[in-house]
């Protein structure tokens, strides 16, 4: 599966558009990580636990998007956008969406 956030795949011709595909993942914070984070809040700096957590859930969202795209028979997703929204206190939704297309091999 080719992924790109451009409107084309360079060097390939798009033969068919299959429409919008999306994948999302909602994650809540871990209590242990939350405690460490609140300590880290005093001195500042990177909260690596959260960085990893968000990275993992973003990958999950992208893999769900890929699953949806391959179900429609696509071999590439173009114009991918990633978006984050906090839907409740301590929980974040990570969304990935794009256009599923068939490109020439």
């Amino acid at each position: 599966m080719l992924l790109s956030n451009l409107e084309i795949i360079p060097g390939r011709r798009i033969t068919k558009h299959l429409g919008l595909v999306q994948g999302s993942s909602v994650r809540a914070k871990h209590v242990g990580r939350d405690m460490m984070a609140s300590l880290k809040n005093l001195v500042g700096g990177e909260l690596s636990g959260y960085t990893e957590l968000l990275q993992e859930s973003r990958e999950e969202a992208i893999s769900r998007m890929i699953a949806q795209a391959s179900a429609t028979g696509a071999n590439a997703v173009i114009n991918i956008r990633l978006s984050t929204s906090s839907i409740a206190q301590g929980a974040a939704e990570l969304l990935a969406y794009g256009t599923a297309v068939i490109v020439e091999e």
Partner: protein
Amino acid sequence: MHDSQAISGLLQLIFFIALLGLGFGIGRYQEKRHYKSIRKREKSLSALPAIAAKVVDPYSFANTAETHLVMGNVVISVDYFKRFVAGLRNLVGGRVRSYETLIDRARREAVLRMKEEARRLGANLVFNVKFETSSISKGRKQTIGSVEVLAYGTAFVPKKPGR
């Protein structure tokens, strides 16, 4: 009764000043170290430009073998002292320097991580870079506790010579 109240008030004040001092000392040291590492890595990655342009001429990239979606993210938090200073700043308005450096560090770090991933894949260019910023935890009175910055783009990997 009066005395014990005065003592607990004093203790609270001491605790508050200690937290401010801790935030100021360690926060400042960490920020300096972080900027130093950012500058060093930016120098070493300067041969791999990240471009925010969107329009691509498909024929000018005939040399490109493959493209990958690359991304880098970072969650970064402001220290206690800076949060306090920003709170004071809220009263009079104006530039909030302490948050400016926070966001600046986060953006540059996210771009660096994205570029590092692109370099691992052998890319020579990252195209159509987009940023996504969100504040993931709010402190008291809805002040910014920590922000997440994500940078993502399409990495172009050139064809290997001789093929």
